[in-house]
């Protein structure tokens, strides 16, 4: 759908939190708690991911007067976003590994 977001550590944590259960919907604070990040850090990441189409959001379908609170905004991974996020996380992880294999010694 578009280019990958910058895979900063907070972005990776947010994606991992969402990918634990891709079909589950979470709202901002729940994602922050799962990723162990403050809300101010989480929401810019969610906005970027939503712009890329990796996640989608919707308003909670409740009766605010009955619940005693307004509807929350829930986020969840899209099908294509799940795949792209997994690939992006794998690339980000692979990029950090230091592979130092000894060069084979040529036999004379």
């Amino acid at each position, binding site marked *: 759908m578009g280019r990958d977001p910058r895979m900063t550590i907070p972005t990776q944590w947010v994606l991992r939190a969402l990918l634990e259960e891709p079909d589950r919907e979470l709202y*901002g604070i729940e994602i922050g708690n799962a990723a162990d990040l403050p*809300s*101010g850090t989480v*929401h810019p990441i969610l906005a970027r991911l939503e712009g890329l189409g990796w996640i989608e959001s919707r308003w909670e379908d409740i009766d605010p007067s009955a619940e005693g609170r*307004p509807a929350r905004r829930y986020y969840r991974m899209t099908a294509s976003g799940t795949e792209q996020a997994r690939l992006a996380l794998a690339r980000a992880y692979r990029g950090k590994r230091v592979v130092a294999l000894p060069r084979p010694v040529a036999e004379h």
Partner: protein
Amino acid sequence: MAGRVRKPGFWTVRTIGIAVRVLPRGPTRERYHREFLAELYGLRRLSQLHHALSLLFRSWALRVAIGDSQSIPATEVDTMIAVKPARLMCRINLHHRWIPQRNPDGDVYYRCSRCDKDRYDVETGDGPNVGGNIAGLGMSSGGA
């Protein structure tokens, strides 16, 4: 029946209001305002304040993220390029640079090369800077 949910405090709500001020006006700002307030319900007072302050301190990052993520369709980009920003002298109608144009019917009219404003009464001499700024097409400004 839902239990009593802790409502956000006055200063927390004000902080959220300030936090969303940097966001683009309209549906975006309203959405995030509503979303951030909804997240406060059920939190303890201190957690509410912590949440609101966290959003406030990172509000510009959210603004940038929203700006980056809002893709502009190609047709809109073309339109944006075509619309020139109006210069001050054009805005206060003191100095336009009228260039003669022809409409599909062959009639001559004048368009400001700076702000794209059109004029059809240039021949009568109405308006400022009519004579001096007309790039002639071999037509006199006074005649029909």
